[in-house]
């Protein structure tokens, strides 16, 4: 069957140049970077070279890069690391209502532990207002955490402004930059973040590796304890092959960013305009906001997202949605809900995230299949005739 992959915000395939760079570290150069012998030294060298490559690419110092098992662990280390650095379980954390579950679930957990959380609202386009962050700061605020770009809508948040608010009040600032890194310019000095997390598998690197960029002078309590790896902030033998792959993937993404942005934004814009012109009752979310070049969130009235996704999947097209019908309770996307999108419309929302290997012809095929999908599902839908009659 013909297959079209349009879910690059979920994950990406491993780039062949990255795989080639990783290969030696999976087999002959298998050493533990903590060992003092030859094998260990080879691993240690690859580890520190990768750290330098990544640091240089994002404007950080090598010692500020703490490798983790991925973005989720990096988010956990940032939040829990700040929350528990003093041995008292109280304090106030400010985050946004559109964060990834890695942040929201962790905040929820911290709340149960005695911390208080403020969830900043967003406007109809999904943007956080830095002024809201300013107004939410209290004497006991220990951290502000806002994502760089949203995984569902692609909206780019005003991170430099929010970090300035944090700096003015002497509050540490964490930024979840997992969807943004490698897609738009990112420099931790320009953004002035104290903590920032990265992930490898969203940029054609291997899964299971990410990093927390910890500004010198920021104190953190480790989440994983054990050996003295990663400045004592993350115990566990370093995954050298993955780290080497991560560094190569980031290098390629940043070196090729200009051509990537031009290519995928052209495809995304074509996809959006073809859908708006070809299908009735389509809405593009956050269309007026500054967005990542490859992401679009689209609602189709009177149909439910999982049905759209299954129909697409049967035609070989892989996309995703932020909503899930699992328990009998409605679970429309928390991101779209925060933007004030009605549950009816949110339930018909699909996220398409393009990648460097997608073609214009694939976009044409997707539009054609989505037209068929709407014809099929709207013929069945109890909502469509009602809506059309209005």
């Amino acid at each position, binding site marked *: 069957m013909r297959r079209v992959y349009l879910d690059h915000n979920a994950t990406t395939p491993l780039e062949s140049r990255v795989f080639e760079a990783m290969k030696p570290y999976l087999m002959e150069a298998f050493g533990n970077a903590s060992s003092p012998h030859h094998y260990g030294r080879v691993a240690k060298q690859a580890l520190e070279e990768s750290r330098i490559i990544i640091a240089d690419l994002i404007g950080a110092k090598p010692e500020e890069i703490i490798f983790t098992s991925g973005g989720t662990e990096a988010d956990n280390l940032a939040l829990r690391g700040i929350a528990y650095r003093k041995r008292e379980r109280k304090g106030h954390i400010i985050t946004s209502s559109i964060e990834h579950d890695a942040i929201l679930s962790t905040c929820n957990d911290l709340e149960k532990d005695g911390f208080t959380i403020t969830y900043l609202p967003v406007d109809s386009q999904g943007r956080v207002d830095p002024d809201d962050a300013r107004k939410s700061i209290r004497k006991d605020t220990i951290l502000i955490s806002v994502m760089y770009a949203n995984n569902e809508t692609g909206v780019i948040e005003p991170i430099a402004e929010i970090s300035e608010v944090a700096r003015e009040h002497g509050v540490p600032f964490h930024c979840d930059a997992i969807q943004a890194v490698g897609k738009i310019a990112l420099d931790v000095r320009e953004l002035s973040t104290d903590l920032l997390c990265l992930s490898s598998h969203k940029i054609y690197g291997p899964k299971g590796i990410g990093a927390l960029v910890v500004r010198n002078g920021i104190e953190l309590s480790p989440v994983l304890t054990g050996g003295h790896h990663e400045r004592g902030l993350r115990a566990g033998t370093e995954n050298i092959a993955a780290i080497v792959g991560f560094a190569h993937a980031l290098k390629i993404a940043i070196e090729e960013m200009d051509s990537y942005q031009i290519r995928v934004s052209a495809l995304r814009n074509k996809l959006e305009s073809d859908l708006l012109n070809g299908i009735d009752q389509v809405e593009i979310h956050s269309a007026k906001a500054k967005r990542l070049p490859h992401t679009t969130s689209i609602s189709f009235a*009177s149909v439910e997202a*999982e*049905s759209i996704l*299954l129909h697409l999947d049967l035609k070989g097209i892989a996309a995703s949605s932020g909503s899930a*019908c699992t328990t009998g309770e409605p679970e429309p996307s928390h991101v779209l809900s925060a933007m004030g999108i009605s549950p009816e419309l949110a339930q018909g929302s699909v996220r398409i995230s393009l990648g460097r290997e997608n073609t214009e012809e694939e976009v044409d095929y997707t539009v054609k299949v989505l037209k068929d999908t709407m014809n099929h599902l709207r013929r069945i839908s*109890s*909502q469509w005739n009602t809506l059309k009659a209005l």
Partner: protein
Amino acid sequence: MAEESWKDLYEKTQEPNSPPTGPILFYNDLVIEHFTNPRNVGELENFDGEAVIGDPSCGDQMKVAIKVDSNRIVDIRFRSYGCPGAIATSSMVTELAKGKTIEEALMITDDDVIISLGGIPERKRHCSLLGVKALQEAINDYFRRGYDLD
């Protein structure tokens, strides 16, 4: 797919060696077949009972209409809004109800729908209730209309 092929699929699920109908992670072929080719979609011009169950803002809704002749459901049509589980179970409910007497139709349970579909993912069990409730409500509506005539 042709009428025969879904029956083949259905019969496959009835064979003793067919996979268990218990918790499954993904939709089976028969559920997908009912999703891509739902039976009895549409409306009835002269129905004897109808019902609308569910709330689109909560994720699913089914409209169903029945035509009754000599205490038997001779025709049935539905439209559903919802996930593939909701669409496939709606379709199967109408297949099960068609040709049955009112009493037989009232006995159809959500388990009957799930078994007839060869199982649906555990997290989708609630979908099958939508169709069963809609059918029962349509029959109640049929009764109400009958009493109105007295």
